[in-house]
């Protein structure tokens, strides 16, 4: 029986993934983009579904939740891991419900009648065994993977709707999504990009070189000059690390200042974020930034170097995701479509 081998193989892979996550955020900046992380997480979850021993949907969900908790604990700032786990849990619930025969629509709605009489799905314990469940779940996860692979292209396809000729666009740091967005628009239109370098990691430099190699007129400015040049900027397009449940952002350091400057000049702020970055978290009041110790001469001084900034939803004009454009006030609705409320806490 290849069972035990499969299991050890599976555990090995999970361990490898966990150590990768831990290493990835250990102070040298993210080693890989969040798209890759999302894809790897989903692939790993598919493997778990295929190889782990489970008999009912509830078992599977328990296994996934357990592994998911370990993964999120390994790297709390990498929220895509948690998001993918929640997506897969939602998939399992849906597949289970479909197998049982009840339509998805009624399950979704939290009608007052349902709340009073049956309590909805919360009384379900997912103990029923369905033979086709495994295959269905794996198929759905495959669909999810295809969706993930196409996110950047889907976002880039919308570029021409938002960028016109002779515009001055400002961005900060390095975002692969924004890079492909701008490069796609540059094929047809001519515009100018100003990149804020985003100290101390100065990832804006890499972004600028990559954009200029595609023939886009690029200018690199220091972070301190963001407000000074903002009066000439037509649009601000940024990427983000996470989109929060209230429509706010958890983005790279300096984004809040950029958003405030854009608000002051009434410049639209557009966020290019694929759906897998949407996280049901809200901003934690005890703002837990990731500290990174910066080389400092004197030991008598406190040095702060937060990696992320919180941007409130009032400063954001538009979200562009792989399923289209949305206002920040719509994000909560998308949340309920992607994740089940019970999965918000893993």
């Amino acid at each position, binding site marked *: 029986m290849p069972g035990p081998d499969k299991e050890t193989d599976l555990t090995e892979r999970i361990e490898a993934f966990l150590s990768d996550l831990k290493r990835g955020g250990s102070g*040298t*900046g993210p080693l890989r983009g969040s798209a890759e992380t999302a894809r790897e997480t989903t692939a790993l979850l598919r493997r778990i579904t295929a190889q782990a021993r489970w008999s009912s949907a509830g078992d599977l969900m328990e296994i996934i939740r357990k592994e998911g908790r370990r993964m999120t604990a390994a790297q709390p700032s990498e929220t895509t891991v948690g998001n993918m786990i929640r997506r897969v849990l939602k998939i399992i619930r849906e597949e289970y419900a479909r197998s049982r025969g009840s339509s998805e629509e009624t399950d979704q709605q939290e009608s007052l009648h349902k709340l009073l009489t049956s309590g909805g799905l919360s009384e379900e314990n997912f103990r029923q065994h369905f033979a086709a469940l495994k295959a269905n779940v794996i198929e759905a996860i495959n669909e999810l993977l295809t969706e993930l692979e196409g996110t950047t292209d889907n976002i880039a396809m919308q570029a021409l709707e938002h960028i016109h000729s002779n515009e001055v666009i400002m961005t900060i740091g390095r975002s692969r999504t924004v890079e492909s967005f701008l490069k796609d628009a540059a094929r047809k239109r001519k515009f100018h990009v*100003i990149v804020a*370098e*985003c*100290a*101390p*990691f*100065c990832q804006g*430099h*890499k972004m*600028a*070189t990559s954009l*200029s*190699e595609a*023939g*886009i*007129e*690029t*200018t*690199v*400015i*220091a*972070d*301190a*000059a*963001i*407000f*000074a*040049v903002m*009066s*000439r900027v037509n649009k601000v397009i940024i990427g983000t690390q996470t989109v929060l449940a209230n429509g706010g952002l958890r983005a790279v*350091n*300096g984004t*809040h*200042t950029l958003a*405030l*400057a854009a608000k*002051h000049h009434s410049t639209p702020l557009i966020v290019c974020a694929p759906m897998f970055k949407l996280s049901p978290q809200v901003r934690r009041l005890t*703002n837990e*930034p990731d500290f990174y110790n910066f080389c*400092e*001469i*004197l030991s*008598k*001084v*406190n*040095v*702060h*170097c*937060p990696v992320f*900034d919180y941007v409130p939803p009032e400063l954001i004009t538009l979200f562009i995701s792989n399923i289209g454009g949305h206002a920040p006030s719509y994000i909560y609705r998308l949340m309920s479509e992607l994740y089940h409320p019970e999965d918000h806490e893993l």
Partner: protein
Amino acid sequence: MADSGETGGPVKKDGIQQAKTEGKELTKEEKQRLRKEKKQQKKSKEKKDEKASQESEKEKKPVSSASPASQPPTQPITPKAPSAVPTLVPVPASETPAPADKPAKSKAEMKAERRARQEAERASKQGKKGEVGQQAAPGKPKAPPSELQPVVKRLPEHVQVDNPEVLKKLAKKLERQQIPLRSDYGYKVSLFSHLHQYSRKAPLTQQLSIPSTVIHPAIVRLGLQYSQGIVAGSNARSVALLHAFKQVIRDYTTPPNEELSRDLVNKLKPYISFLNQCRPLSASMGNAIKYIKKEISNIPSQCKEEEAKSKLLNCIDRYIDEKINLAAKAIAKSSIEKISDGDVILVYGCSSLVNHILCEAFEKNRKFRVIVVDSRPRLEGREALRRLVQRGISCTYVLISAVSYILPEVSKVFLGAHALLANGYVMSRVGTSQIALVAKAFNVPVLVCCETYKFCERVQTDSFVSNELDDPDDLIVTRKGKTQLEHWQEVPSLGLLNLVYDVTPPDFVDLVITDLGMIPCTSVPVVLRVKNVDQ
């Protein structure tokens, strides 16, 4: 032609007209001289016409009787003043007799005529009123000139780099003064094509011969210190400039047949051009230079050289003492009232005045802690950090991108200024406006500390029209062993922008602390006016 020989202006103008009518070919120098004279004439006409309206009236009256013949030819050309008093017509007529019948008149001359006519009309109206009370007349014309004084300033050269004529003029001027011209470096962002962009690796002194015969060695050293950034910060630069000028004055000897008051000013002009080439002059330096020039030209001609020199040296010492040192003490005194125990104060970059205030407050046993915000590429905050920690003040250090993270802890923001503009905008190191913006969003009070000698009559609303572009190579940095922008010059569509200054709108600033007291940002023109009237 020789009938109007009272004022020097008309005579010269006659000379010009004469030369033109005679068809003489004017050489370049003569053309320059003539242009200068025309400009001086225009200025003197605008200033003196109203003051000396009575005298000119009286003088012109006999002229009018002497040149009635010139009236008819001018009348078809001056149809705008038919109702004018007959004494009026000869005023412009006496100044432009010859080409009155010449059809080919330049536009500038016609403009000058019209302006002179208007001034004369205004003057006559005032003269009519003043004729009754002539004692009051000299007092009255004095007040209007200060209001109606048309401030037609020439646009400074350093914001007209995209105009090739201006560049040519500058090159000629520098050639005359024997100062090398510094060439621009690197690809300039199109928004800033009207500004210079120099490289620190090519200082101007490399193009000078050593020892330089034209420029005093103290000035050469100062220029090098400016261009390499060794002396930076508006107070430091002004003080260094004044000390260098003191040295120049000490080593100066009046050449024979020259007056110290005029010759020394001419000696200083090439030095100022040189320093301007090394690094554009700051507002505080500009004010200091104006003061020195005024003091020099006010030296009476019968003063002996030694006496004059020691007087000038004393003046400079007093200026430094009053405007910088004592002002710092006064500002520190008022600021300490604003610092309370338990405060968390945010400062940006390295401002000598703000550092002084914090050290003084610490001496007075106020309990506070400081957050120093710094920014690339200059990283001046590290210097401020060093100075504060040496005194024993507890500090925190962040980069400017973390400002919105740290601001909830802050109770006050103290900012220094490079200059305060006449419309209330604060010109300071780039990044200051950003900090003021974020502080405003978090409702943290912003206090700007600035001495009055940095107040400037310019107005500006954005950071583009007049700024300084620093060496773009400063932005290049190595991270994780890779230097991304190393070959930025080879990529045609890539530009680096290293701004030095930016302007903060007055609605972000809550209070300006000056040596004259604590004023709101909008009271800057009031202070300027008070200063001008005093001087």
